[in-house]
C-alpha cells in the first residue's frame, strides 16, 4: 500500500510535465491568435470573404462527402454482410486498399481518373469528342475525399451489421412486419451508433485533409490549405492560429462524438 503511494508521487509530476508539453503548443496557438491578431482574427474570419468562404466550403464539402459516404457505405456494407457469393472475401480485402495511401497519392488517383490524361477524359473523347476533366475542381476534391471515406464507413457498417442480433429481425418478422418496416425499425436503429461514429470520423478527416487538396492544387481553398498559406506564405500567424484552433475544435468535437458511440481511438495525424 505504501509502495503504491510513493510511486504515485514520483510518477505523477513526470506525467503532468509531459502533459504540459502536450498542451503548450495549443496554449501558444491561442495566445498567437489573440495577441498577434489584436483580438480581431476571429472577427476577420467571419467578415473577410476569403476566410469565410474557405471555412464554409470546407464544412460544406465535408458534410456532403460524409452524407454520400454514409448512404453508399450502408447499402454496400449491409449487402456484403448479408449475402454470400464467390469472391466476397477478396472484395472485402480490396476494400482496405484505399486506406493504405496517404492523401498525396489519393490526389494523384483523382488526377489519373479525372485529369487531362485521365479515364474520364478518354471516355469523354470517345463518346462526345471532348475531354471530361474535373480533377482540379470541387468535384475532383469530392471524388478524392469519397475515395478515402467510403471504405472506412463500409468496414464500420459491416462490423455493426455482423453484431446485429438476427433474432431481432426474426422477432420483427414473426410480428408481421414487412422488410422495409424491419429495415427502418430494427436495422437502422441498431446501426445508428456505428453510422454516427464513422460519419463523425469521416467528417473530421475531410475537414483536416491536406495532402489530397494540396496535390490537386485546386482553386478551392480548403481550410488546411488556407492555414498553410497564411502561415508560410503570408506570415499571417494570427489568422493561421485562429483557423487552426477552429479546425481543431470542430475535429475534437467530432472525435468526441465518435468515441461516445464506441469507436476506438482515432486521430488525424500526419
Amino acid at each position: 500500500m505504501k509502495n503504491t503511494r510513493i510511486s504515485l508521487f514520483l510518477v505523477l509530476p513526470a506525467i503532468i510535465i509531459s502533459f504540459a508539453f502536450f498542451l503548450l503548443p495549443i496554449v501558444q496557438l491561442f495566445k498567437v491568435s489573440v495577441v498577434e491578431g489584436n483580438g480581431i482574427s476571429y472577427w476577420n474570419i467571419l467578415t473577410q470573404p476569403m476566410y469565410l468562404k474557405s471555412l464554409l466550403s470546407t464544412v460544406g464539402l465535408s458534410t456532403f462527402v460524409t452524407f454520400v459516404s454514409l448512404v453508399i457505405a450502408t447499402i454496400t456494407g449491409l449487402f456484403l454482410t448479408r449475402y454470400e457469393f464467390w469472391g466476397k472475401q477478396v472484395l472485402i480485402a480490396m476494400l482496405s486498399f484505399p486506406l493504405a495511401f496517404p492523401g498525396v497519392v489519393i490526389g494523384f488517383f483523382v488526377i489519373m481518373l479525372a485529369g487531362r490524361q485521365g479515364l474520364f477524359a478518354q471516355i469523354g473523347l470517345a463518346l462526345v469528342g471532348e475531354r471530361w476533366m474535373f480533377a482540379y475542381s470541387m468535384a475532383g476534391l469530392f471524388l478524392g475525399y469519397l475515395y478515402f471515406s467510403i471504405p472506412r464507413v463500409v468496414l464500420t457498417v459491416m462490423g455493426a451489421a455482423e453484431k446485429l442480433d438476427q433474432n431481432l429481425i426474426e422477432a420483427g418478422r414473426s410480428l408481421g412486419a414487412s422488410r422495409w418496416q424491419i429495415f427502418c425499425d430494427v436495422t437502422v436503429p441498431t446501426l445508428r451508433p456505428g453510422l454516427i461514429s464513422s460519419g463523425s470520423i469521416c467528417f473530421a478527416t475531410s475537414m483536416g485533409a491536406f495532402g489530397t487538396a494540396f496535390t490537386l492544387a485546386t482553386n478551392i481553398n480548403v481550410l488546411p490549405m488556407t492555414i498553410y498559406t497564411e502561415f508560410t506564405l503570408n506570415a499571417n500567424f494570427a489568422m493561421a492560429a485562429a483557423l487552426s484552433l477552429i479546425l481543431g475544435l470542430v475535429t475534437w468535437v467530432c472525435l468526441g462524438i465518435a468515441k461516445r458511440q464506441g469507436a476506438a481511438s482515432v486521430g488525424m495525424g500526419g
Partner: protein
Amino acid sequence: MTDKTNSVEITLKNITKTFSDGTLALKPTDLTIKAEEILVLLGPSGCGKTTTLRLIAGLEFADSNGGSINFGDKNVTELPIEKRKVGMVFQSYALFPNMNVSENIVYGLKVRGIDTAVIDHKLAEMLKMFDLEKYAKRGVHQLSGGQRQRVALARAIITEPDVLLLDEPLSALDALLKARLRGDIRTLLKSLGITAVYVTHDQEEAMAMGDRIAVLDHGEIAQIGSAKEIYLQPKNAFVADFIGQMNRFEGNVIDAQLVLNTGKKIPLSSEALASSNANETLSMMLRPEDIRLTKVTDEQHALTGIVSSSVFLGDRTRVTLEKVQKEGKVIVDCFQRIEYPSGQIVALSFESKHLIPLQG
C-alpha cells in the same frame, strides 16, 4: 384476450431438414401437436429441437421432398413466418433496444396499422396481465431478466397468434426465477388455450411445463409422451440418462434372476423374464429413488454394496455405493434423513416392477 384464442392443431408430415453444409439436422419426422397442447421439445444441444421449432415457425424451410406442415387445415409448408400467425419468444428475449416497453409490446399491432384506440386498449390489458404497468415507459435495458421475459411474452401474444413458439425462454434466468416463471408461463398458456411448442434442454423444466414431451436425439424423436411415460418407461438408454439420474445393471439371466459380474443376483419380474431367454445378457435400469438401503441380514443372498460417500442434500441423502458391480457406482437417493458412514456394507432392495429393461 380474456377469451380463448382459436387454437389449431399442428401436423408435420415427413419433414426433413438438411443444412446448406450437408448436415442432416432433422431426419424424416412426423409429429402432431394437438390444439391447446403444450408440447416440449427436449434434448441436448444439436439434437434438432431448435431446427424443428424454426421449421414450425417458418424461419427455416423443410427440404422439398414432399413433406408438409399444416396448421389445422391450412398447409403452411411454403409460407414464411410473416404469414403463419405465430408468436415467438426467444432465449435472448430479442426486445427492440430502441423502443421502450410499451412500444415493444404494441409493435405487432402497429405494423398492421391497427387503430390507435384499439392498440391502447390492448396495451393496457397486456401491461396489467403481465404486471408491467410501472415499467410501461422504461427502456428495455433498464429491466431485469424476468421483466424482459414478460415483455417478450406480452409482445408475442398481443397479436393473438394461432401458435406460440418458445425457444428456451427461461435459460438466461437464474434457478430460483426459472422455477417460479415456468409455473406462471404454463398457467398463462393454459388460460389462453393456445397451442404451444416449447424448446428446452432442462429436463425438470420440460416435465414441469409440457403436456407432452418429445425427446430428440441426433435429429430424430427418440420418444414422445407425458412426463410420466418418459420418466418411468424410457424407450432407450439415451432417454433414460437424459431424464434424471439412472443406474444400470448388466448380467446374465440364470434361474429367473439377473446375475451380475460380481456374482450378486437381482430377482426379475415375470414380465422381464417373459421377454428374455435363459443365459441371455440383459441390461436393467433403476432410478436412485427406487432403491432402499437396509441392514445386511443374509450376506449370502442379498444384493450388497459398500458406501463410498453419503452426502446430505436437504430433502434427500445421496448415497454412492461401490462393489455392487465390478465397474461403476450405484447411486441411491434416501429420503429418510439417515447417515451412512463410508465403508459400511449395506443391502439394496427394490420392487422388481421398478426395474426398466434397456432396449436397443
